[in-house]
């Protein structure tokens, strides 16, 4: 019954929106022309790629249902498919963003487009290869591609930010639409950088230890100092005290808990997380294995905060763009 309600709600909202589109979209048609190489073309390419990405998500979500209904068997579609499918439109998208960011409206020259991008791309290629290799000791194909493309976007965005803050026509002040666009793209670059590093270098592992033991994960040593009772206002808890060392010096202390809420009865685990700008360390208690031995899940997530930070910057870019009077004029 609840499912039916959700379906009706969806039909109303989506149906309403699409009907509105059908009636009003003609008002948005314009007769502006642009040539095959132009900023408009880059925008067109990127819009098409974004629509493809969305369609792929729709297909991946609905295909199992459709296949089951039409007797083609019951299958699962999970991360392994989505990850690969999304890369297909997203990689060209990231390339076109960097190239298109500095291209001219209406008519541009493809050689000039390459010329403008050359320097930034080569710089990004060097940095993008160097960082994973030096700091993490590895350089797989997707890792390097993601690294280079995101850094290229970041560098291109900084150039555009400079252009937005100091436009050629000084008298008109800060160009907010350019600044907003560049900031949003900068956020995207941060986002992709975070995703690339976390998926390539992130570690999630299950281990076990007793008091006094040390576990090593991703260069950090986790030493279990003690296990104590730690009652709370509406729960009973067992708390572990864990010292985390990096290169033999104490980096942080973590206190994960296993709680049994009085009302619920089934235990819940409270993970302990140490967050910083370039990584998250995560540890959660599993089960007691007897003799004060506990199973744990330890996670190492490099650059993960950049994903959230990137989104914030994207939102900031949108806000800056909206504040530009030119987008809010009613004609």
């Amino acid at each position: 019954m609840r499912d039916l309600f959700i379906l009706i709600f969806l039909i109303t909202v989506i149906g309403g929106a699409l009907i509105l589109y059908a009636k009003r979209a003609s008002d948005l048609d314009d007769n502006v022309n642009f040539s095959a190489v132009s900023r408009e073309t880059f925008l067109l390419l990127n819009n098409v790629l974004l629509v493809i990405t969305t369609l792929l998500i729709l297909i991946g979500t609905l295909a199992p249902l459709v296949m089951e209904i039409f007797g083609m068997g019951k299958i699962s579609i999970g991360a392994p498919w989505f990850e690969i499918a999304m890369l297909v439109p997203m990689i060209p998208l990231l390339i076109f963003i960097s190239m298109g960011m500095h291209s001219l409206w209406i008519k541009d020259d493809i050689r000039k487009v390459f010329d403008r991008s050359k320097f930034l791309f080569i710089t990004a290629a060097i940095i993008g290869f160097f960082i994973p290799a030096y700091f993490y000791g590895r350089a797989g194909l997707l890792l390097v591609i993601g690294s280079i493309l995101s850094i290229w976007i970041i560098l291109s965005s900084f150039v555009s930010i400079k252009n937005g803050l100091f436009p050629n026509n000084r008298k008109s002040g800060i160009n907010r639409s350019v600044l907003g666009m560049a900031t949003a793209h900068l956020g995207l670059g941060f986002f992709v950088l975070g995703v690339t590093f976390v998926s390539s270098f992130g570690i999630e592992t299950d281990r076990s230890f007793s008091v006094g033991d040390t576990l090593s994960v991703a260069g950090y040593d986790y030493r279990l100092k003690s296990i104590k009772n730690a009652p709370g206002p509406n729960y009973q808890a067992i708390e572990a005290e864990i010292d985390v060392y990096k290169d033999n010096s104490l980096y942080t202390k973590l206190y994960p808990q296993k709680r049994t809420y009085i009302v619920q009865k089934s235990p819940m685990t409270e993970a302990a997380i140490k967050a910083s700008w370039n990584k998250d360390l995560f540890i959660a208690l599993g089960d007691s294995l007897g003799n004060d031995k506990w199973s744990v899940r330890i996670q190492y997530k490099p650059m993960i905060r950049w994903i959230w930070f990137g989104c914030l910057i994207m939102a900031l870019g949108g806000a800056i763009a909206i504040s530009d009077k030119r987008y809010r004029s009613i004609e």
Partner: protein
Amino acid sequence: MKKIYYFILFATFSPIVFAIDTGLAFEDSKLQERYEKLISEVRCLVCQNQSIKSSNVFLAVDLRNEIKIMIGKGKSNNEIGDYLVERYGEFILYRPRYTGYSLFLWIAPLALMLGGLFVVMRVIKSKSN
């Protein structure tokens, strides 16, 4: 009635969310990586939507064990996938198979890209005249 049955079934030995193997399955880090990737692609059939990597119900534990043994015996990822599909059907794998109807899924991204290219060319043609 069925719903109550399943609720009781799941509640009495519900998976502890951060439940866990108790140690590395393999000394060799490459094998361990392969093992971890494989078990993250196998669906826990008794759970809502989790892999056997994140669940500790009997089925998850037993399947992890079987996969561990099969890797040890030198079976390929495809053979392990076939083993599971033979017993549980394609539903158990989060990665759709490359044969049969699922092939369309793997073709979809490229097909859509071709379609997109076609659309872009048409729009540019109409806008640049």
